[in-house]
């Protein structure tokens, strides 16, 4: 063996030699997402780990998402392989596949959420429901395209809920093969909410409606805040049992916060735990976006359908807000309706910004937080409905 042979063998076994065009494209996509997360600060907490997971999974020959033991996909199984022979990200991905990570994220979200504005104005719940319109529009549009199964269409529709963990939870159960594109679309559009929503909000409302100043919300007692998560858990789960994991964890986190007797648990849920789970969920979800799987017509369709879902969700919330404006004789600013798409607190901030553009002395943030947190419950209910129908 001479020097040239060694060099040839080294090059032949390097990643450069086995790099496919799909992997190259996906690496470029991951660089763009890294740019958006770091420079543009678009949902960086999730977009950054997702983008890096995407990069790792598309570096050739790493086997980081390999599944020789066939834990996730029996067709990939190699006789004699054990579970620990699987790629490291594939093993961590078990947390997504088993729905542990989305549920733990919901626990943290619950511990960070103040349902006070929603309790002070219960009609906010209606706006949270109306903004789920986008989910069902995207579901129908997905089926109309004819390239998705009903299960896949349901998972795509949930993108319209603008709730990352719910979208991942639903996709991992109904369409695990589309988890990567769905997660990337959901988080990308959530980051783009300040660009997507305002034109729709302005198109559907008049200047006079946008100028409406809303009455200050009443103060909510501690007892109300403690009873609320318990009642929500019981009511929602009795109606749609499949929603128990998501709503249950969301409300448990909130009860940690509001009860005031488990400060340490509340602190862990809203800081350390959610941060650790976010890292693992983000990286492994990004790693599912392997070039050969990701670069398909279906992915482009999902990106388009996700935008459609967000647009209709925003329109649904604003239109019901408009109806409430007329019913209350101008006491409700329709702009708060768009916050019903969850994406806490980004969507509420958009309502605040648009309200202030119309009337600089307008402060809609707290009023928009009601529909915003109602949207989280609404999208979880919609997900539970689809799981009830299409879950195996």
């Amino acid at each position, binding site marked *: 063996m001479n020097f040239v042979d060694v060099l040839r063998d080294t090059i032949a076994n390097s990643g450069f030699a086995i790099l496919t065009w799909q992997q190259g494209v996906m690496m470029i996509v991951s660089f763009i997402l890294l740019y958006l997360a770091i420079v543009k600060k678009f949902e960086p907490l999730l977009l950054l780990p997702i983008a890096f997971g995407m990069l790792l999974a598309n570096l050739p020959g790493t086997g980081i998402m390999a599944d020789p033991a066939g834990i996730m996909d029996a067709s990939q199984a190699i006789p004699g392989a054990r579970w620990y022979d699987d790629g490291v990200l594939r093993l961590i991905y078990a947390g997504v596949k088993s729905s542990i990570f989305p549920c733990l994220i919901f626990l943290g979200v619950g511990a960070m959420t103040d349902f006070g504005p929603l309790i002070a104005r219960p009609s906010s719940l*209606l706006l949270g*429901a109306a903004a789920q319109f986008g989910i069902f529009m995207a579901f129908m549009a997905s089926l109309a395209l004819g390239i998705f199964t*009903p299960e896949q269409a349901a998972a795509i529709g949930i993108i319209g809920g603008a709730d990352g963990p719910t979208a991942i939870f639903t996709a991992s159960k109904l369409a695990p093969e589309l988890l990567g594109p769905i997660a990337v679309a959901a988080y990308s559009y959530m980051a783009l909410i300040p660009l997507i929503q305002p034109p729709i909000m302005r198109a559907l409302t008049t200047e006079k409606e946008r100028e409406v100043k809303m009455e200050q919300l009443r103060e909510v007692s501690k*007892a*109300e805040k403690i009873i609320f998560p318990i009642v929500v858990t019981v009511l929602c789960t009795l*109606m749609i049992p499949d929603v128990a994991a998501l709503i249950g964890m969301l409300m448990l986190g909130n009860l940690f916060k509001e009860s005031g007797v488990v400060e340490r648990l509340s602190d862990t849920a809203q800081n350390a735990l959610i941060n650790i789970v976010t890292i693992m969920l983000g990286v492994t979800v990004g790693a599912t976006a392997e070039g050969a799987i990701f670069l398909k017509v279906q992915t482009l369709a999902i990106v388009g359908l996700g935008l459609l879902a967000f647009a209709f969700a925003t329109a649904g919330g604003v239109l019901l807000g408009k109806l409430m404006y007329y019913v209350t004789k101008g006491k409700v600013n329709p702009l708060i309706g768009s916050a019903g798409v969850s994406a806490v607190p980004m969507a509420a901030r958009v309502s605040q910004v648009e309200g202030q553009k119309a009337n600089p002395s307008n402060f809609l943030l707290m009023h928009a937080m009601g529909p915003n947190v109602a949207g989280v419950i609404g999208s979880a*209910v919609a997900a539970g409905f*689809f799981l009830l*129908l*299409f879950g195996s």
Partner: protein
Amino acid sequence: MLAGKDLSMIDALTISLTGILMVFTELVLLAFAVVIISKVVGAFSKGKNSSKTTDNTTNSKSDAVPLPETQSRGEIDLIDVSQEDAAVIMAIVSNKSGIPLNRLVFNSIKLLEEE
């Protein structure tokens, strides 16, 4: 229920309508539950407050009914200052000092003209 079955567009429309109806029903139920909780809790705390007032006749009325944390005590003289500006100043003082507004007393806020 429908796993693995093909759906026509009519089926999809029916499912969508049922779904949005389900979401509305669930959230309307929750809204009613919230209203009931608020009424029950309100009635309880009212009862508690009135019993406190009758028990402790030596206390003044303002002590018996605690002010919310977003409201300050006493009256304030505003000299060349709008109510909105005063509210912002009081909120900043409360926030920076870490003392809730209901434990702070502001006597006056006066605009100092720059020379």
